[in-house]
């Protein structure tokens, strides 16, 4: 994390000189990384040969890293190992957009799946998509409990389009595509209005780590830092300084006079 901050700090510094900084960060692209490879070790993520994330374990979804738009090389290495590249990918990212790069598949066939996250929000609605990142699970449907599928026939590696739902709490089911039996019941999935979500199906149906669904909110309504002052304290402070200076000056003058009197005596 420290290194991440220092990387971001360095980048921010480098680009502060060239790119005018917008109030709300919309000149940056946002990228987060998901570790969804069930048998891969904890990893470090390198962005253009600089470490950006350290020690991410299976199921870790990092915060969004703010990066200037452009082309990047993302490398994933075993945590603490600077030599071995487990998997790498080139990413082209645009300002104002959000992305998720996921390391998926068993270690033998590991790859990076990159997707753009929807950061356009609708009041009272939730946009939801499903990413099937469980290497041994069959094609699946995702449906409201006992209802018709919202997302159909998603195979391993598939990322659905976003569907729009009314905000609310849903009981959902993951089923084998076309079937009615339930692989996983997802109870009480709370979808907030004005937020978008990705449900990442990760892990293994047969074996450990076990199959589960990681529900993530996508993107974010970016804003500039709030204006939280009106200057009252600053003026008071400068008044205080003036006052202090005046007092010091008077004291110095007094001391000088005092010394003069002593010398004169």
């Amino acid at each position, binding site marked *: 994390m420290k290194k991440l901050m220092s990387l*971001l700090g360095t980048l921010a510094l480098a680009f502060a000189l060239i790119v005018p900084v917008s109030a709300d960060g919309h000149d940056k692209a946002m990228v987060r990384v998901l570790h969804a490879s069930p048998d891969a070790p904890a990893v470090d993520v390198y962005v253009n040969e600089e470490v950006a994330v350290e020690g991410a374990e299976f199921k870790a979804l990092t915060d969004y890293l703010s990066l200037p738009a452009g082309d990047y090389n993302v490398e994933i290495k075993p945590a603490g190992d600077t030599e071995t590249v487990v998997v790498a990918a080139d990413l082209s990212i645009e300002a104002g957009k959000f992305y998720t790069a996921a390391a998926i598949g068993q270690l033998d066939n590991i790859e990076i799946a990159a997707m753009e996250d929807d950061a356009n929000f609708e009041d009272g609605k939730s946009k939801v998509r499903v990413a099937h990142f469980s290497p041994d699970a069959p094609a699946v449907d995702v449906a409201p409990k006992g209802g018709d599928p919202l997302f159909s026939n998603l195979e391993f590696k598939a990322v659905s389009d976003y569907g729009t739902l009314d905000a609310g709490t849903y009981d959902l089911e993951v089923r084998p595509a076309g079937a009615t039996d339930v692989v996983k019941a997802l109870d009480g999935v709370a979808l907030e209005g004005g937020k978008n979500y990705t449900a990442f199906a990760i892990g293994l149906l047969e074996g450990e780590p*076990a199959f589960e669904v990681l529900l993530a*909110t996508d993107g974010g309504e970016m804003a500039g830092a709030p*204006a939280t002052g009106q200057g009252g*304290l600053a003026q008071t402070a400068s008044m205080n300084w003036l006052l202090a200076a005046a007092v010091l000056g008077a004291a110095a003058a007094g001391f000088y006079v005092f010394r003069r009197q002593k010398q004169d005596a």
Partner: protein
Amino acid sequence: MGRQQLASTSFVVRNKTLKLLFIGTLSFLTIAPVVDAPDADAKLTTVGFADPLVLAATEIDRQSFRVDTFIPKRLKIPSIDINAVIQPVRKDRLGRMDTPTKTDEVGWYQYGAKAGETGNVVLSGHLDDLRGPAIFANLGDLRLGESVTLQRGKKIIAYKVVSVERYRLEDVPLASIFAATQAQRLQLITCAGPYDPELGYEDRIVVTAIATT
């Protein structure tokens, strides 16, 4: 067509490392009465029960996403004597997170997380007004580990401070504050540093706390 109702009761022992253990699933198949069309030939309707049927154990693996969330109404930080009303805020004309007009109140960014929800709960408060200190005047005095609570009626969520940072305005880590995260964080923001009559304060203090309840 007769309606079939499948009533099943399952007992499940969960264990993360061991394979799931089924104690059993016992199902009764009941055949509901056949509902005939009104003009059908009059005849005795029979109501029968099928023999109890034991199906192969079908285990439904469940995952609960239930959370108790609320829009925070009051912020308490005992160590710096804050007990403030929270007002929902959006963005101002310049695209900045807004702050309540009343300088003894705190703004809750309504596009961020609610209390208890995964994500960033973002609060803004004034350092000062035109005359002197406002609600977040002492925010920068917070120390690591100190407690912050959000409340609404009897609902309460406690956080503990994990970082107190001061940034130049252009260096404020907006992605950490406003973008989605899997953490349950509270972000408290106020002004600091030199004051420019036109641009306002040049620095921001950002206090980050994580949920402990």
